[in-house]
């Protein structure tokens, strides 16, 4: 008698479990595969986010995130950007015309504006935005932090944003094309010598700043076939001794173009006139170049433009 009940119970459990398994399997086969990609999105700080549907209202709290969104065709979902956003469109003109909302300053995004928009997804960056990210998550918003430390990290970010917005295929295509462009550069410079490159962050009478190994411009210079002249310093941005630069004698000088005065030639002449700089190979051989800071400082798809430009600066004979 007891045995009979036990067998019936076990049989019932097996039948229900099998039915449930078949149902779940069937569900996963028939639904949009993109929706599965919305599960467990892991961002650069290791935080997991799950979305239940494709986001329709995206707030971008970093110019680099905006550039990624537009590059994979998710730009039509963007409802707000920072005041610094200027690519791929002139967003300040859009904001002035009322076609886009500004969330204000990059370092201090306006949380009231963000909450009033009630976005489905917020893309933020690391560092100074940590506190805002915590607040937004406590308010129940879905936030992905894009804080890559390498070019590979940027490519992963593009795929992550693709997965989060239902543009996985577009993201994959973009990543493939960026990868092949990077490979074209690295193959071209593979057998060339690696000139010493000085990358300037700031230079005034009071102090001078550059990048060490931990800033990612270091990797861009490396991929472009050069050696960061301060690449032995295990630090990101730091104040260096000018006499160390003069002693090490750079072959190429790269300057971010903005904030350095007006005309290009005027800026380059000013660099040549700095005390003691006339002893450097880069100055004697006229190897001083300017680069758009937005392509080399933002963790977006345009870093590949930066790699290509750097390669032309460092190896003009190859490109």
């Amino acid at each position, binding site marked *: 008698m007891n045995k009979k009940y036990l067998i019936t119970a076990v049989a019932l459990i097996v039948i229900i479990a099998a039915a449930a398994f078949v149902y779940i399997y069937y569900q996963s086969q028939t639904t949009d595969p993109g929706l599965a990609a919305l599960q467990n999105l892991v961002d650069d700080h290791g935080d997991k986010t799950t979305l239940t549907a494709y986001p329709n209202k995206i707030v971008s709290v970093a110019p680099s995130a905006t550039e990624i969104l537009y590059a994979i065709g998710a730009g039509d979902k963007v409802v707000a950007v920072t005041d610094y956003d200027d690519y791929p469109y002139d967003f300040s003109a859009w904001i002035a015309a009322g076609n886009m909302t500004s969330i204000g300053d990059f370092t201090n995004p306006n949380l009231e504006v963000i909450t009033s928009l009630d976005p489905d997804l917020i893309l933020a960056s690391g560092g100074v935005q940590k506190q805002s990210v915590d607040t937004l998550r406590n308010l129940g918003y879905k936030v992905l932090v894009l804080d890559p430390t390498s070019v590979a990290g940027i490519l992963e970010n593009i795929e992550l944003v693709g997965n989060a917005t239902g543009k996985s295929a577009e993201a994959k295509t973009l990543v493939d094309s960026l990868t092949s462009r990077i490979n074209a550069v690295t193959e071209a410079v593979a057998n060339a010598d690696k000139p010493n490159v000085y990358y300037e962050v*700031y230079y*005034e009478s009071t102090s001078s700043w550059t990048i060490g190994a931990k800033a990612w411009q270091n990797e861009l210079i490396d991929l472009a076939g050069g050696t960061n002249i301060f690449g032995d*310093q295990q630090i990101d941005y730091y*104040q260096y*001794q000018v006499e160390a630069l003069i002693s090490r004698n750079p072959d190429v000088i790269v300057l971010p173009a903005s904030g350095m005065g007006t005309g290009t030639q005027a800026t380059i002449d000013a660099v040549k006139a700095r005390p003691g700089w006339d002893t450097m190979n880069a100055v004697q051989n006229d190897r001083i170049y300017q680069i758009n800071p937005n392509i080399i400082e933002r963790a977006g798809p345009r870093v590949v433009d930066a790699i290509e430009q750097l390669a032309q600066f460092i190896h003009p004979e190859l490109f």
Partner: protein
Amino acid sequence: MSTDKVESTFFRRTSRWKLIVLLLIIALIITVIVSLNVGYAQIPFLDILSIIGKQIPGLNSLINSSSISAQNSAIILQIRMPRILAGVLVGAALAAAGVLYQGVFKNPMADSYVLGVSAGAAVGASVAILSGLSFAFFGLRLIQVAAFVGAVSAMFLVYNMSRVGSRVPVATLLLCGIAVNFFLFAVVGLLEVVAGDELHSIVFWLIGGFSNVLWKDIWAIVPFIVIGIVGAYFYARDLNLLAMGEETAHNLGVNVERSKQILLVLASLITAAAVSICGLVGFVGLMIPHLTRLLIGPDHRILLPTSTIIGAIFLLICDDIARVVATPFASTLELPVGIITMLFGGPFFIFLLKRKKGYAA
């Protein structure tokens, strides 16, 4: 006391003063020589002597410098020498100005921040950075000229706002200065918020330092600082009498308002010249006069020259530390000198204060 006795005390004192000043000048020269040897590039002392000797007419033909690289020569002549001179000038200027401010205000907390001079310089420099313009003005950069103009304007603003009739009461001056100071630093804060990409330029300028000063910068500030300090020396006696109270000073024949005015203008010009090339290097102006008072005494006739020299030595040593601190780790890092002045100056000053328990400024 007989006249003989007074005279002999006076001569004993002045000869002691002369000895102190002489010893300090020797200490300064030694510090300069040591500083010439400090830095990332390891240049032998004999090479340094040849590089400098090569610049002296008449001596240059005797020196064979063929073994010395162009890099090392540039480092000594165009990087280290102007930087050392800037350290001497800025340290001397800030310390001398500190003596004048503390003397006029009879307040131990007085320094270049009190009259809004530093804040004015900061506003001037920030505006210049944000303007994005970079034209030169008599060979000086716009930032430097703007910082100087900002500093001097702030001082005149505070001074004129504090005027009550024909007098400028010290208490009003102090309060006006503090109010203007906060106001101007709020303006700097606002400018930083709207600065965008230029934010780091403002922040770095405010940290201060003189890593990349030019010979031109030195020549531009030398007249202000030398004339300012020498001019102030003639008012050292007035400062001594002012220390006994304005009423007493007036009764002893000091034209109180006039002396105050001249001393404050001189102190502010000295400070403005210094901060225009080095940004806001803190603590030297506040601490060095107290330190000198502890070591040598409160008489302004000796306090002013000795503070000036000790200020120069102190800032030079701080800048040397800023340069060598990372060298053992094969690093090209350099620390902002303003951080060193406060990091080492603060504890050292408290140590001195504790040893002389009865000290009151």
